[in-house]
């Protein structure tokens, strides 16, 4: 780390807070990607990291380089704008691909009314069941 250029205290505190918040949000999103039970739930997790996590870290980077270099450093806005434009496009295409594949496999998606609110929203059976041997032993999820 370049130790010769010290930031003012407020900038250091602000950048640290932004970095910690961005890292935690990204971690939380990926925890959702790992823990959620169906693909349509899993899609919601990583968007935390792709939106607010990205914005926080980009803001921290802008603050740091604006303070250390001379003049405002605005080139990080490029990444923010680009990701804001592209991430929804990929997510939408992926969701449509998943809907198409599930429907072609004869699955009833999106879930009928009441299935999401009854008991617990377990839709592992929407995906390939044989990857979940523990669930097969437990039997099918309760019918809505």
């Amino acid at each position, binding site marked *: 780390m370049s130790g010769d250029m*010290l930031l003012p205290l407020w900038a250091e505190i602000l950048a640290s807070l932004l970095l910690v918040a961005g890292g935690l949000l990204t971690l939380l999103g990926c*925890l959702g990607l790992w823990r959620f039970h169906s693909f349509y739930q899993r899609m919601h997790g990583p968007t935390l990291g792709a939106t607010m996590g990205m914005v926080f870290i980009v803001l921290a980077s802008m603050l740091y380089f604006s303070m250390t270099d001379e003049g405002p450093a605005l080139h990080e806005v490029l990444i923010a704008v680009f990701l804001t434009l592209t991430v929804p496009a990929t997510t939408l295409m992926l969701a449509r*691909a998943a809907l198409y594949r599930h429907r072609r496999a004869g699955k009833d998606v999106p879930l009928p009314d009441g299935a999401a609110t009854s008991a617990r929203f377990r839709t592992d059976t929407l995906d390939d069941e044989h990857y979940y041997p523990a669930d097969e032993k437990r039997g099918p999820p309760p019918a809505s």
Partner: protein
Amino acid sequence: MNGMLDWASLFSLLCIAIAMLLATLRLLKGPAAQDRVLALDTMYICAMLMLLVLGIRTGSTEYFEAAVTIALLGFVSSVALAKFLLRGEVIE
């Protein structure tokens, strides 16, 4: 510098590394192809964030260009994979 920013960026790097590990687990587990594509999509965003944090940590702007490249190529690859899942071919 062994200040607050150093510790904060280290913490942020650790968080993003654990996030990438979780995405890798999802990539290996599946269960469906779209889950793996989603995990890859998440991994490139995590790698880009990691490069930005590394840029702050080292105080050099070279990491920024690598981050832009990862963002561009990751978008293209994710769109290609999603299109492949949807149509069975990438270029029609």
